[in-house]
């Protein structure tokens, strides 16, 4: 654990000095501030912010993680040539990445709400930050696993963009087309599974069920609301999202343990 912490500390320092993270935090800070000032009531601002988070967080996390792992490869080799275990090395690197990306969201979204005493939607804002952090973990873990599995940097980057595009853009549209083609068939359960299979959909369901705005739920999310009450649905989606957050990181750890550098 101490070894992982030491590795994480220096990785944190390296990334902090690159100033990339500040740009990320400032983006959320500006978006939140502008929406709270000019976006009507705080709930509407939060809904708009949810769309921004669902779109940008997965992209930033998966791209950053993929690039970071590839760039750090030679240094990782040097560290692994020391008397250091691979699990500690992975834990330190992943933790640094997850903490930094999450900090960008916590500060960027959290601060404007905190300065307004929660703006009357403090609990909802905390939930949005939590969903953003969960998506960060999912997609940072996915990016790490991708980078470990794909030695070619450009190819890994391309696949990362493809994964994001599928999950964030194409998923709902493909399911809508499929459901239209299969009109009349009992699709509620398959659509529930489809929602559980996409962490972005899950995060959307968590937020919008909590805010009780089914109109913006998306096709898969709408089927979720038909099957569960708001409380049960939010809880099931939140637990599934938490499981998703752990999955890619565990896969990354497994790949790292077996990786030939």
């Amino acid at each position, binding site marked *: 654990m101490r070894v992982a912490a030491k590795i994480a500390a220096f990785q944190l320092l390296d*990334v*902090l000095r690159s100033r990339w993270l500040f740009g990320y935090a400032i983006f959320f800070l500006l978006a939140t501030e502008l929406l709270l000032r000019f976006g009507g009531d705080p709930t509407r601002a939060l809904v708009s912010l949810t769309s921004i988070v669902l779109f940008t967080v997965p992209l930033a996390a998966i791209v950053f993680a993929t690039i970071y792992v590839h760039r750090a490869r030679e*240094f990782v*080799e*040097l*560290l692994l040539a020391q*008397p250091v*275990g691979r699990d500690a090395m992975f834990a330190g690197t992943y933790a640094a990445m997850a903490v930094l990306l999450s900090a960008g969201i916590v500060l960027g979204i959290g601060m404007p709400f905190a300065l307004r005493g929660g703006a009357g939607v403090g609990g909802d804002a905390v939930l949005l930050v939590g969903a953003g952090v969960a998506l960060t973990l999912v997609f940072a873990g996915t990016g790490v696993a991708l980078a470990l599995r794909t030695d070619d940097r450009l190819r890994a980057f391309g696949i990362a963009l493809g994964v994001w595009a599928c999950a964030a853009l194409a998923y709902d549209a493909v399911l809508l087309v499929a459901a239209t083609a299969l009109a009349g068939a009992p699709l509620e359960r398959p659509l529930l599974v489809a929602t559980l299979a996409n962490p972005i959909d899950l995060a959307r369901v968590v937020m919008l069920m909590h805010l009780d705005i089914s109109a913006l739920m998306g096709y898969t999310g709408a089927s979720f609301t038909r099957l569960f009450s708001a409380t049960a649905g939010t809880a099931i989606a939140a637990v599934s999202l938490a499981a998703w957050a752990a999955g890619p990181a565990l896969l990354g750890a497994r790949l790292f343990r077996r990786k030939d550098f």
Partner: protein
Amino acid sequence: MIEFRALMKSFGARDVLRGVDLCVRPGRVTAVVGSNGAGKTTLIKCLLGLVRPDGGEIRVDGVRVGDDPAYRAAIGYASQTSRFPEHLTAREVTKILLGLRGESAVIDWELFERLAIAPHLDTRVRALSGGTRQKLAVALAFLFAPRVVVLDEPSAGLDPAANAVLKDKILSERSEGKTVLVTSHVMSELDELADDIVFLRAGRVGYAGSVQKLRVFTGQPHLERAIASMMNKEVVCA
């Protein structure tokens, strides 16, 4: 003593190491040579635990190389590409390794002094020249006074003065009974340094023995020509 026994490694359909049997003797400088893709770097990476062999085993001073990383406390390593985190300073990079080795590690600052790294210690890596980065990489390989030093193309990017310092250090380590394993394409350099030669050809040991015997065997007085002639001979182990 480093022992490789029937070491095998493939990357996909490509067999890189095809049953390497080898003993690297302590207190000697052993050069691993061979054409591009012969398996030199893979052999070294297997020793360091960076690449997992498909078969065979490696022992360092009798300890089998496996999942326990403790054996690497005895090893110092410089790779052929010296890339460090760009936004850290040379001092911070050094501190990371010092932190990982623990307080009980013996520290040897000699190369930091002789390669004049001190003025660059507070410079961020991205502002360092390629040569200075390589000096740092080489100095880090010797920092913990390791019993075994593994150097993969260490002179690439070093200026002649730094290269001379490195050669002196390698020879002084040898005189202290330490083992140096080095790969290089610069045969004149190895001619000067190496006691033993391991010649890899297509993932197998083509020759393993002293430089002197190799010269006799090939009838060539210079290492470069001796190696070149080996490339055209059948597999022979001395």
